[in-house]
C-alpha cells in the first residue's frame, strides 16, 4: 500500500488528510433546519393526542423556549470548541472523557434512530399515496438510506447543497399552505373557533399538557446538529452561531404556522393520530395542487432530515475513533472526497436493519430519549464552561445572554420531559438509562486504556480556573 495523497492533491497540510472546510452559514442552516423540519410534517401532532390542540400549542412555545436555550448555549460553546463531534468535543474538553463517550453515543443514537424514522415515514407516505396492493415500504426505505449514504460518502458540500434546496422547498410549501387558507379570516377555510373550544381545548387538563411534552420535542428535535459541521465550516466562530440561531427562528415560525393551520382544519381527536398532519391539511383545503405539494414536501422533509442525520451520526462516530474511544479504524478520512467514509459505511447497515425491523414509534422514542439526555448534559456543560473559563479568559465567537437563566430553564424543561416520557414509555426510558450505564462501565474499565490521554485535548486554551 502506498500513500499517493500528494498526487491527487487532497491533503490539508503535509501528508495529512482532514475533513474539508467548505461550508458557510447557509449550509449550517440547511443542516439544522433540514434535520428538524420533518417534525412539522409528522410527530408534533401526537402531542394533541396526549393533551388536545391547545396543549400542542402550549408545548410548541414552551419547548421552543427549551430549544432556544439549547441553540444559545450550543452557539457559545461550539463557537469556541470548533471540532467534528460537536457536543462530544465540548464534553471532552469541559466535563471529561466518560461524559464525552456518553454524549457521543447519545448523538449517534439520536441521529441514527431519527434517520430510521425518516426513512420509514418516507416509505409509508409513498405507500399511502400509491394505494397499491402488494406494495411495501421496504424498497423506498432502502433507497432513502443507501442513496443518502452515497451522497454523504461523496462529499459534504454537495450533501448540504442538496439539503439546502430540499429543505427550502419543504419550508416554502408550509408558507404557501399558510397563505392559501386565508389565515387572517376565520370561517372561510379555517375553523379554529369551532374546533378548539373552552370545552375541548385541554381534554385531559394540565397533566395532558405535561404528557404532550414528549411529542412537542418534535417541533425542533435536531437543531443542535448544526455543531457537527464545526470542523467543515470556513469560519466556525461566525457561521455556527449565525446558522443555528437563524435556523431556530425559522423553525419557531414554521411551528406556529403549522399548528395554526392544522388545528384550524382538524379536530384534536384526528390531529393527534394522523401520521401526515400537513399533507392532510393540504387535502382538506380541497385543492389538488396543495395536496400534491404537501405530499412532495413531506417526502422532501423526510429526505432532508435523514440526510442531515447521516452526516451528523457519522461525524460523531468518526470523532470517537479519532480519539481512540473506539478503534481508530473508524477515524479514516476519504483522501478524495474528504469524508469520514468508514463511519458512514459502518452505520449504513445498522440504519437499514433498524428500519426494516423497528416500529416507527420505538425508533422515534429512542431518538427523543437520546436527545433529551443530551440536552440535560448541555445545561450542566455550560455552567461548568462559564465557571472554568469565565468571560474574558478565552475568545468566544458568541456569548449567550442572561446566563445562567437559559441553563436553568433548559434543565427544568428536561426534567419535565423525562416525566412526560416516563408516562408514555417508562420501560424504554429505564432500558435506555440501563444501557448507557452498562456501556459506561465498559468504557471506564476496558476501553479507556487504549486512549492516548494527552492527545485528546486539542483546544489551545489556558488552564481552567481552579486547576
Amino acid at each position: 500500500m502506498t500513500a499517493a495523497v500528494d498526487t491527487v492533491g487532497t491533503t490539508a497540510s503535509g501528508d495529512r488528510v482532514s475533513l474539508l472546510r467548505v461550508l458557510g452559514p447557509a449550509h449550517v442552516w440547511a443542516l439544522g433546519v433540514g434535520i428538524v423540519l420533518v417534525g412539522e410534517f409528522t410527530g408534533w401532532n401526537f402531542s394533541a393526542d396526549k393533551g388536545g390542540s391547545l396543549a400542542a400549542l402550549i408545548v410548541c412555545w414552551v419547548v421552543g423556549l427549551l430549544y432556544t436555550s439549547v441553540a444559545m448555549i450550543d452557539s457559545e460553546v461550539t463557537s469556541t470548541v470548533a471540532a467534528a463531534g460537536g457536543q462530544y468535543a465540548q464534553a471532552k474538553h469541559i466535563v471529561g472523557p466518560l461524559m464525552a463517550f456518553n454524549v457521543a453515543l447519545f448523538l449517534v443514537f439520536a441521529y441514527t434512530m431519527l434517520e430510521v424514522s425518516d426513512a420509514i415515514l418516507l416509505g409509508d407516505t409513498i405507500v399511502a399515496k400509491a394505494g397499491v396492493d402488494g406494495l411495501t415500504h421496504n424498497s423506498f426505505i432502502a433507497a432513502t438510506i443507501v442513496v443518502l449514504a452515497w451522497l454523504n460518502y461523496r462529499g459534504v458540500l454537495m450533501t448540504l447543497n442538496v439539503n439546502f434546496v430540499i429543505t427550502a422547498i419543504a419550508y416554502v410549501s408550509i408558507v404557501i399552505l399558510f397563505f392559501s387558507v386565508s389565515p387572517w379570516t376565520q370561517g372561510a377555510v379555517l375553523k379554529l373557533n369551532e374546533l378548539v373550544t373552552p370545552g375541548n381545548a385541554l381534554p385531559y387538563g394540565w397533566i395532558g399538557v405535561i404528557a404532550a411534552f414528549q411529542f412537542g420535542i418534535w417541533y425542533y428535535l435536531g437543531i443542535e446538529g448544526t455543531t457537527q459541521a464545526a470542523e467543515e465550516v470556513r469560519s466556525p466562530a461566525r457561521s455556527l452561531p449565525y446558522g443555528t440561531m437563524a435556523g431556530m427562528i425559522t423553525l419557531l415560525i414554521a411551528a406556529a404556522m403549522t399548528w395554526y393551520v392544522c388545528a384550524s382544519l382538524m379536530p384534536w381527536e384526528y390531529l393527534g393520530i394522523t401520521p401526515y398532519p400537513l399533507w392532510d391539511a393540504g387535502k382538506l383545503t380541497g385543492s389538488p395542487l396543495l395536496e400534491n405539494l404537501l405530499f412532495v414536501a413531506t417526502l422532501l422533509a423526510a429526505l432532508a432530515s435523514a440526510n442531515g442525520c447521516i452526516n451528523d451520526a457519522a461525524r460523531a462516530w468518526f470523532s470517537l475513533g479519532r480519539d481512540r474511544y473506539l478503534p481508530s479504524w473508524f477515524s479514516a478520512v476519504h483522501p478524495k472526497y474528504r469524508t469520514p467514509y468508514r463511519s458512514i459505511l459502518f452505520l449504513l447497515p445498522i440504519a437499514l436493519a433498524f428500519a426494516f425491523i423497528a416500529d416507527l414509534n420505538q425508533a422515534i422514542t429512542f431518538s427523543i430519549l437520546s436527545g433529551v439526555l443530551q440536552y440535560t448534559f448541555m445545561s450542566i456543560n455550560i455552567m461548568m464552561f462559564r465557571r472554568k473559563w469565565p468571560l474574558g479568559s478565552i475568545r468566544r465567537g458568541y456569548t449567550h445572554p442572561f446566563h445562567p437563566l437559559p441553563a436553568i430553564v433548559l434543565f427544568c424543561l428536561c426534567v419535565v420531559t423525562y416525566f412526560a416520557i416516563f408516562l408514555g414509555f417508562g420501560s424504554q426510558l429505564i432500558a435506555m438509562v440501563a444501557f448507557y450505564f452498562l456501556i459506561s462501565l465498559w468504557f471506564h474499565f476496558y476501553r479507556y486504556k487504549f486512549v492516548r490521554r494527552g492527545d485528546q485535548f486539542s483546544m489551545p486554551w489556558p488552564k481552567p480556573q481552579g486547576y
Partner: protein
Amino acid sequence: MWLSLSYACWGISVVLALWMLYDWFKVDTSYSEDVLTSSREGELEAVSEKHRI
C-alpha cells in the same frame, strides 16, 4: 407505475451500495492506514488562529 418505482429503488440501492464497497476497497488498498487516519482534531485552529484576548 408504483411497483416499477419500487423495483427501481431496489436496483439503485444495490448499484450504489456496490459502488461504495468497491470504492472503499480501492481506497483502503491504495493508501496507507497512517495517511487515512491522520486527521487531528483542532489542528487547523491551532495553526491558523492566534489565541489572544
